């Protein structure tokens, strides 16, 4: 058997799981922040923004108050800018009352190396001085390269580095799902198809 055959993506969370996870995180936030009085939610582009919106809806239902919600683009703070062509900026929207003295909860889809969160912390430092910063993620897949951990985790998903975690959300991808598969599945399977299968090795 060929052990190099890439594994197709398989689903680890479906739509109902994601909804449950967001509800649980919302309750955890209320419990830990003692009512979430000074909480500000900031979604990190792109899927973190969609997740922050859903979390905001649940928090509003639970607490009966409108929790300030914003978005954060960390492009200008990335440490890999020199590796790729310049990319278009997304919209940063900080709630009108700012983040000074607030408990900022950063929301993202996948926690991996921790470099995105590092960039987000730098960005926050330029925007204001929060009382504290916490991190909520849908999936923690491990392989941290910086001393960063999440405060609220939807699902811990131990992965290997050759795997890719794909978060799909209805707002941008048409469906809710978390998939795990081999990083180069598409590339390698198309290469396999292109090669002549009848040709003996």
């Amino acid at each position, binding site marked *: 058997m060929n052990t190099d055959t890439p594994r197709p993506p398989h689903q680890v969370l479906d739509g109902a799981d994601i909804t449950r996870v967001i509800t649980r995180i919302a309750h955890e936030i209320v419990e830990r922040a003692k009512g979430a009085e000074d909480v500000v939610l900031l979604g990190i582009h792109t899927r973190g923004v969609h997740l922050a919106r859903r979390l905001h809806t649940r928090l509003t239902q639970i607490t009966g108050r409108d929790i300030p919600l914003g978005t954060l683009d960390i492009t*200008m703070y990335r440490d890999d800018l*020199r590796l790729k062509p*310049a990319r278009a*900026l997304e919209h*940063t929207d900080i709630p009108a009352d700012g983040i000074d003295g607030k408990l900022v909860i950063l929301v993202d889809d996948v926690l991996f190396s921790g470099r995105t969160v590092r960039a987000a912390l730098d960005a926050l*430092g*330029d925007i204001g001085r929060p009382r504290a910063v916490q991190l909520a993620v849908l999936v923690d897949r491990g392989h941290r390269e910086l001393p960063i951990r999440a405060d609220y985790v939807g699902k811990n998903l131990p992965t290997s580095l050759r795997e890719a975690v794909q978060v799909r959300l209805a707002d941008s991808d048409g469906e809710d799902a978390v998939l795990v598969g081999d990083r180069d599945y598409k590339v390698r399977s198309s290469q396999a198809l292109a090669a002549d299968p009848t040709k003996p090795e």
Partner: protein
Amino acid sequence: MRHLVSAADLSRDDALLILDTAEELAQLSGRAVKKLPTLRGRTVVNLFFEDSTRTKTSFEVAEKRLSADVINFAAKGSSVSKGESLKDTALTLQAMGADAVVIRHHASGAPARLAQSDWLHGSVINAGDGTHEHPTQALLDAFTMRRHLNPGLGNDLAGRRITIVGDVLHSRVARSNVLLLNTLGAEVTFVAPPTLLPIGIENWPCEVSYDLDATLAKTDALMMLRVQRERMNAAFFPTEREYSRRYGMHGGRLAKLPEHAIVMHPGPMVRGMEITAEVADSPRCTAVEQVANGVSIRMAVLYLLLGGATASDTNSTNTSEAAK
């Protein structure tokens, strides 16, 4: 894209990307910390062979807000005044590790020469060359117009009517503007005395009129140009008073503009001749706003040219890979 030499180099998508990026960067001016770490470690040289206050300052503010190392190189008092050629100046800057050169030169085409040569590996940004072009000024003008006439990310200026008044002949602003505004879908009309229109203007994508009053009613943005006395080597119009009467902007003409229309001026304004104080100080005049927008636009251009992998990064990667 590696250089920004002419507004003609920009496709509609390029131009909108710059305008949208500038829109995001404009938020920065409202913050306590007006700085981003994006260009940390990059060196940008402002190479000004011609006097300039606002463009040079605007570029310098933009560079500093992106954390670039800034070197100001004025021709006066430098080796250029001792007769050094553009090539030798460029080679010197290259040896000093310049990642980008913002150049203003009295000779049309100097930035293009620099961009096409292999004297420099970095990006070249044209900050005004002779009577040729001034693309970042055109971008900030388009940015200002979009904010007033069709606000929103991804929007262009399709169908908007822009009237540009004054010394078109000597104006690099007019040249860059007509190219960019045409790319963005706007209709441009030049109004000037026949002596201040360049030869071959009939080939430009614009209309020409000699009557300012006739064009006012159908104008969405009126852009006044500075009468460039320093470039005038002949009598292009009889007297300043006559110029002012026929092509100057005053309260009476302001009243004839549609209510939503804005009056723009790239500065510096010659009050009393091109524009009366009444118009210059009215809330419909965007001259001061244009200065603020200039910083956002220049930040956007610098970020898009230098923020990602640049030629020098690629070179160093190739070299290190070759060494392996």
